[in-house]
């Protein structure tokens, strides 16, 4: 057969979408509402419809149908590489997909259909963060904690910070570096400042749990414990602030060291971030 012929029914084993619809009406209806149905989008789907992804259906029909009987399905037990390969036939040149291979998702058996529901009308974009939380349970828990970024409130999406389709950065961060990512919203911390606090200049995550924390300000540990994990000196830095500490000495280091992300003061107190 001439596989380059324009009519779908002359390709080897292809039966056309109308035949599929006879048994899979619900899936067909959702397909017609999807972007994939748009004839103006060039690609094999404009011609092959259902069989673009599911493969030729003749044998499937001949054998009387049945789940996975001589037809490609996107079921859980199907090799994720094979499933993604179907999508990448067209989408390997979609902007942002160039780093799919080095990405963590591909290497951990996440396939396109793990996140994208292709038979939902109108939009194929995943529900973010719900879809991400299905696998990243720890992040879901963190996002629920007392101190958190506004992920559950819908003001930050997982994809605001991460590139789910792959990245050369750790954790598939959507920036040249995790700090550069933080600066998108927190440019006040970018500096350069006169008096630098070295951990701030190296990694925000030295002190902050980015998805959420049981401690205020998304801190890894409460203050003063967090500060004392790095600082000891004469008098107050090394003093144990136990339950017998006086009221005035209970309060946290930031009561005086407010410029903890770096100070611009010409005063020498900037060195200790108190100016």
């Amino acid at each position, binding site marked *: 057969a001439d596989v380059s012929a324009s009519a779908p029914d002359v390709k080897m084993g292809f039966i056309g979408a109308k035949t599929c619809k006879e048994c899979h009406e619900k899936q067909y209806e959702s397909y017609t509402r999807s972007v994939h149905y*748009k*004839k*103006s989008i060039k690609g094999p789907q404009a011609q092959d419809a259902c069989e673009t992804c599911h493969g030729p259906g003749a044998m499937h029909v001949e054998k009387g149908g049945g789940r996975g009987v001589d037809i490609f399905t996107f079921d*859980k*037990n199907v090799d994720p590489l094979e499933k993604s390969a179907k999508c990448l036939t067209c989408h390997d*040149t979609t*902007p942002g997909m*160039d*780093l799919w*291979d*080095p990405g963590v998702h591909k*290497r951990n058996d996440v396939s396109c259909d793990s996140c994208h529901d292709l038979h939902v009308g109108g939009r194929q974009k995943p529900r973010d963060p719900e879809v991400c939380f299905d696998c990243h*349970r720890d992040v879901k828990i963190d996002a*629920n*904690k*007392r101190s958190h970024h506004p992920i559950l409130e*819908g003001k930050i999406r997982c994809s605001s910070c991460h590139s789910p389709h792959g990245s*050369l950065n750790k954790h598939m961060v959507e920036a*040249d*570096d995790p700090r550069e990512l933080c600066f*998108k919203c927190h440019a*006040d911390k*970018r*500096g*350069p*400042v*006169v*008096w*630098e606090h070295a951990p701030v*200049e*190296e*990694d925000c995550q030295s002190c902050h749990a980015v998805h959420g924390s*049981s401690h*205020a300000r998304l801190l890894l*540990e*409460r203050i003063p414990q967090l500060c004392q*994990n790095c600082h*000891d000196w*004469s*008098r107050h830095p090394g003093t*144990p602030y*136990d*339950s*017998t500490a006086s*009221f*005035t000495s209970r*309060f946290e280091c*930031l009561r*005086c060291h*407010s*410029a903890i*992300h770096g*100070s*611009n*003061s*010409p*005063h020498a*107190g900037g060195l200790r971030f*108190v*100016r």
Partner: protein
Amino acid sequence: HGEINAGIRANDFDDESARFDEYRDRSDGLFGSADILMDSETSFLGASVENPALDDQYYNLRGGLFGLFKGEIFYDELTHQLSYNALTPAAGIGSDVLFVPDPVPPVSAWSDFDYNVEVKTLGAQFTVDTHNPFYFKASADQQRKEGIMPYGLYNSGTFKLAMPIDYTTYNTLLETGYRSKETTAALIAGYSYFDNDFDVLTLRFGGELEEYSTPIDNYSYNFSGRVTQRLPMESLLALKAAFNHHLSEADFSKYVSIASPEADNEFDGDVRYIRGSAVLTSQWDKMLDTRLYYSYVNRENESDEITSITGGTRTNHLFEYDKHQAGLDANYRLSKVNKLSGGYEFDATDRTREDAEQTFDNLLFAQLKNTSLDWMSAMFRLEYLNRWSDSDYSEETLSGDGLIHEFFTPFDYATKDRYRAKVAFEFNPLERLGLGLSYSLVFDDYDATQFGLQKDQRHELYADANMQLPAKIKLDTYAGYEYTESEFDSRRFNPGGADPTLPPDALNFNWSEEFDYDFFVIGSKVFIPIIARLDLVLNADYQFVDGNIDFARSAAAGAPLGTITEADDYYKTTAGIKSIYKADDQWSITLGYAYEKSNLDDWRYDNFTYRSGSVYLSGDGLDRDYEVHQVYALTSYRF
């Protein structure tokens, strides 16, 4: 097609707090949302509106021609509520000059104000993506932050006062790229500018004037490029290079009471980052794939060196570093249902920092995934990290208080061994039943540290389930438990007493603490079809934190230190019930009730007083608890 929702709600507060309004506006009155998408064979146009006129309103207009371009304009407001009804003796709240009378008036004469920051972002993005190999993307946004944040100041007394926030950040990004089946390339350029309207915060305490720095005006350029090339053996080589240039200017002439150390009254900040990455992924055959990678970061600090005149003679340190990271990992399919993964990563960091000059990390991991049962998958992972660090101190030259550096090591750079184990299961025993279960343990051993963090461990247990029960009842539930425990040793000393071998006394002694936290969360949502067209949805979530800190020191140093039994102790309960009546396929009406209660107990706030000696607080940590009942009605129209 789309959906329009409009509703009305009312709250009844048993206890009110800014925490209830954090990131959201749930005020009494009307609320709603709309999401509309129109499309044709060739184009689409969509619009979304959420919570119009409220403090968390969001608007989005998007559209495009399929196969040609798409664009989006959005406006988003975020409300960051920190604390209501804080108190202050200062006048001038909201400005950059605060006046506190000396003597400080009694608390009853202080004025109240709210700590909050409103964030308003206006942005747009545009993508041209036609059927030719080239594409183009552009995005820009402006973010405004206005409000008041707590700020601690020391000036003949300690004050917690109101820092005015008036920030504007402009971000722009341009990207153009080429793609083919074999090769892709992208060039990206970005510019960001941050402007703070308040350059200096001034406190006048009686006749005394003190000045404090605020976030510096700054701007940033970044340029990056990446290339990917498909190679034989189903390999892909990806290369990336990036240059980020951060610049800032501090105008010291704006400080009246502090002498400028520079003739030109300026500090010019100039920090440059050069980054490079290379990754080679290969699919050797159906069984084996590998990833080989390397990345490099260099931080070069060309900022001005400043030597202070006021408050002592101090020179700023220009912090720089180099980081190298290289690794190899591989996935090997032992069989169709067993996949073995393993890898090694080496990190080396060299810093211009005395207490952590060098760090070398060796990370090893192994992971096994099994899918031999149709209804279950299992994953087991082991990870080992060995970190070796070195300081730049010369022990012979350490003296006085500095002698403590011979014994104390900062936790995030300290030499340590880290062990991590994780096991995870996914169960699908029935078509409409899914269960997930995972447990992980992380243990850090800082065995080379004398003073500093000694050990910490973390246990995480998570579970979730979703199922469809008879009568089309759906249940989604999740639970999590985390336990963290840390051991820490340190030394309290007065000047001259850093040596830990000195006999202990009331002011010079070694001490230790153990802190542990239990965190537990559980939540469920049940969907129950009552009768045709009438559904009931129930939800309930509960979480708590229980923190404890135990201290110990030698009896010769004094009485035993007291355990803190309320360390960030917290609980939160949410519950709700709503009924949804679908009048037809388009119209539905929802009636609902929601309940939230949140409570923080922390030792720090026990017997809180705004004024104690020369300490003047604003109570910004007090406004934490709330209990709210909410009723609402919502009508929805789908088309």
